[in-house]
């Protein structure tokens, strides 16, 4: 399906991580051993793996929720795992468990952001295809996707688009901080969370802004961390691949256009904003 979208492009985007993911109905018989075999099938380019607790199901719901609709359950004796599989360069990660597959890119050093259409999305598609084929070859059912998910993490370091808490309204359109100085008390930190509906009930955009120190090594940088996650139901009236494709595209477009719309012209100038129409 062609997407004629306004392509949002920054020469120096503040994005430090992107995640594309699919949540699917549980696959009967899929064990930790299968996940390990899947890792082995990826070959030498993915040398590092760790076990972490699995993530529960997450569904975006609309309207008044019922009492049980958000229910999650874990009664199995099987200690299910989530594998985090990293590549040699350390800038890609595959996360796989029963019910989820995610593909991460994280910025290493001064590396450029790999574009969604040209790099990250095709890589995710390839990995999903490999996973589906792996399940088929092992005699397991095909995964039935139920939610798509896209996440972008951005860092606004101090002394880039802001210098002090009193500047926090500058990178954003609309008020982030109510008052820098309130009757003798001085603004010191912030944590904010907004949710938007991707109408009509096609998904939800979660925006989280946190003030903190980031970085693997000291000295850590003081920054505003702006995380955007779009998530929604996979269209069951489409075949699985089309449903995932449409969902991830919707999530990506919502995030990049939302990020552009919520950030200021001054910040755009700093990041080298330029937009172009594309029909891809």
């Amino acid at each position, binding site marked *: 399906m062609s997407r004629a979208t306004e392509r949002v492009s920054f020469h120096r985007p503040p994005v430090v991580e992107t995640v594309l993911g699919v949540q699917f109905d549980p696959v009967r018989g899929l064990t930790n051993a299968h996940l390990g075999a899947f890792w082995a099938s990826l070959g030498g380019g993915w040398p590092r793996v760790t076990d972490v607790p699995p993530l529960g199901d997450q569904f975006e719901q609309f309207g008044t929720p019922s009492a049980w609709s958000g*229910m999650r*359950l874990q009664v199995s004796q099987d200690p299910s795992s989530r594998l985090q599989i990293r590549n040699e360069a350390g800038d890609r990660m595959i996360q796989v468990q029963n019910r989820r597959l995610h593909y991460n890119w994280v*910025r290493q050093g001064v590396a450029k952001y790999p574009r969604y259409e040209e790099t990250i999305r095709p890589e995710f598609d390839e990995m999903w295809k490999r996973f589906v084929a792996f399940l088929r070859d092992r005699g397991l059912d095909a995964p039935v996707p139920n939610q798509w998910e896209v996440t972008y993490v951005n860092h606004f370091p101090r002394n880039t688009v802001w210098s002090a808490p009193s500047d926090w309204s500058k990178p954003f359109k609309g008020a982030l901080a109510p008052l820098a100085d309130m009757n003798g008390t001085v603004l010191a930190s912030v944590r904010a969370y907004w949710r938007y509906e991707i109408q009509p009930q096609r998904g939800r955009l979660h925006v989280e802004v946190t003030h903190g120190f980031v970085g693997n090594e000291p000295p850590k940088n003081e920054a505003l961390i702006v995380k955007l996650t779009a998530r929604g139901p996979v269209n069951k009236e489409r075949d699985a691949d089309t449903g995932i494709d449409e969902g991830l595209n919707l999530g990506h477009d919502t995030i990049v256009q939302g990020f552009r719309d919520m950030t200021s012209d001054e910040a755009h100038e700093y990041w080298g904003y330029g937009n172009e129409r594309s029909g891809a």
Partner: protein
Amino acid sequence: MSDQVLETTMSPGAIPAVPTGAAGDQELVMGADVAGRKAGWERMINDYLINWGRDPAALESDEVIAPTPDIISLAGDVAMALRDKGIDPPLRVVPDGDGGVCFEHRHGEFLETLTVASDGTVELLVFRNCRLETRRSLA
């Protein structure tokens, strides 16, 4: 739960700029009627599931495939897990007729059924005004 985003990122998390030991809302606020919800699940377990487990033949009929002891036991595990999570208890627990066990919850415009099927799968159905709104496998 749909208003939270579970952590899937690999970049290290931020250290709070302003460390504080203030308790979060969840630590300070006691949930209303937690004891009542737990009691509701206990009743399902004690008055129905345990009795069925002791005498599954009581559910046998020419109409109904009774749940096996294993399925009744799994239903008990489900009930205990949901009890411990503080989930609203069901209105009733019944055999589904196909060898499974079904928990039913009604509230306002909603009917919700959580079925432990004879093959051990667990499925949630949510009806709003008798229109099926959600069908989800939980296990």
